[in-house]
């Protein structure tokens, strides 16, 4: 089911996280997480609402500072400023798009923020990957939620990130959108991109993953190499892991 790219020895590390914690006042959303992820690897992150998955991604994206512990992205200690952020592509269930602008303008604006000088071809390519080229000049407002999500994914990929952080990326996508996203993520992975994907759909997450983690109360309560995971029994494993720590 899952393929491993790590057969030829350990991959170049993209994410190295050690005892990472992030608190909001007295509440510790991420409470000591340790893992590392190499180029071409994909971590599927599962867990109930409020487990700290989104907070973990936001720390790695440079949107939140770590409270304690350390996190490195492409060798840069976070918070690593613009250099660290430029290596990361962020997809979330919020599209982060400007609805008055067209898809092309949104993606092109993003490309320029990432310092891509001659962005036209890159923008077209990104939109084509998500099959949004035909409607590229319509304002985002006029698109369906699923189409907006496709544009949002194109936006996150336009600068060829080395690390993709995907928070519920399938939400709102129809079947063909989901297929396009899966094949895009597969392809990025074989090209050496590291991916962390947060999802409630265990099968979907495991189909991409090289590693799987269950998060609960800010901690990894289970961490497996995906090729050792029995996909059929994983839902039970997940329930047990959550129940045991909840």
């Amino acid at each position, binding site marked *: 089911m899952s393929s491993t790219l790590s057969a030829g020895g350990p991959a170049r590390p993209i994410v190295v996280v050690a005892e990472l914690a992030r608190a909001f006042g007295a509440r510790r959303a991420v409470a000591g997480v340790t893992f590392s992820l190499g180029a071409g690897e994909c971590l599927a992150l599962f867990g109930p609402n409020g487990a700290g998955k989104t907070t973990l991604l936001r720390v790695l994206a440079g949107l939140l500072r770590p409270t304690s512990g350390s996190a490195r992205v492409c060798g840069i200690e976070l918070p690593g400023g*613009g250099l660290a952020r430029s290596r990361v592509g*962020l997809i*979330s269930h919020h599209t*982060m798009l400007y609805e008055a602008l067209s898809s092309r303008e949104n993606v092109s604006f993003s490309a320029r*923020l990432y310092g891509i000088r001659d962005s036209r071809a890159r923008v077209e390519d990104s939109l084509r990957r998500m099959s949004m080229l035909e409607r590229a000049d319509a304002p985002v407002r006029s698109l369906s939620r699923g189409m907006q999500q496709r544009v949002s994914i194109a*936006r996150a990929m336009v600068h060829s990130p080395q690390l993709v952080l995907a928070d519920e990326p399938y939400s709102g996508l129809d079947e063909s959108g989901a297929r396009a996203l899966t094949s895009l993520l597969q392809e990025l992975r074989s090209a050496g991109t590291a991916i962390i994907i947060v999802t409630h759909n265990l099968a979907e997450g495991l189909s991409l993953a090289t590693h799987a983690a269950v998060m609960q109360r800010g901690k990894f309560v289970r961490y497996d190499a995906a090729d050792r995971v029995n996909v059929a029994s994983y839902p039970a494993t997940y329930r047990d892991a959550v129940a045991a720590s909840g």
Partner: protein
Amino acid sequence: MADILFAAWLIARKDLAIEFRTRSAFLSAVVFSLLGLVIFYYAWDPTAVSAPDLAPGVLWVIFTFSGLLGLHRSFGVEAEDHAIDGLLASPVSREAIFLGKALANLIFVGAVQAITIPALVVFYNLPLGGVAAPLIAIAILAAIGLVAVGTLFSAMAVNTRLAELLLPMLALPFFVPIVTAAGQATAKLLSGRPVIEASAWLKLLLAFDLVFVAACTLAYPFTVED
């Protein structure tokens, strides 16, 4: 530095493109300003206070209130579907984001002024004579200070429970030196006094701009880096 200014320009251009598409905030700010001119005129007894005496106060009070209309929209645009996260996750520095938003607001406020001031001159029958140039200088200095403070508070207010209610409360005390200085300087000019008599007010405006452009640009990263 060049990077910051380039990124700021990208962001400002994006904001102006959005405003140009929707035109909602600009139109309401212009109509609000023109209505303000009319209402203020009829609220006074013209035999007691002549229109040119009234004009400076009217102009700068309207200026701040119509400015608030545009400022509130500034980070409202970023709040829809969390577009601000896209900006913050990009390699662009926080200072560049602030300066870009402020630059777009400055152009917005300037465009509203470019319509309101001529309308004021016509409606209030002002003797413009040789004071057009210094009046424009006052308008620019006042707009810079207003936009610096207003952009920062707009960024903050949008993340609070009170949202648009909070912005005037936070910003208006900071607009008092601007309105006082711009209003008093305009009054000096319109009553035919030499520019030199308004110079203390112009210096105050300039000092306000320098202090608050710097302070707000430096403060903005603290409001987003959680």
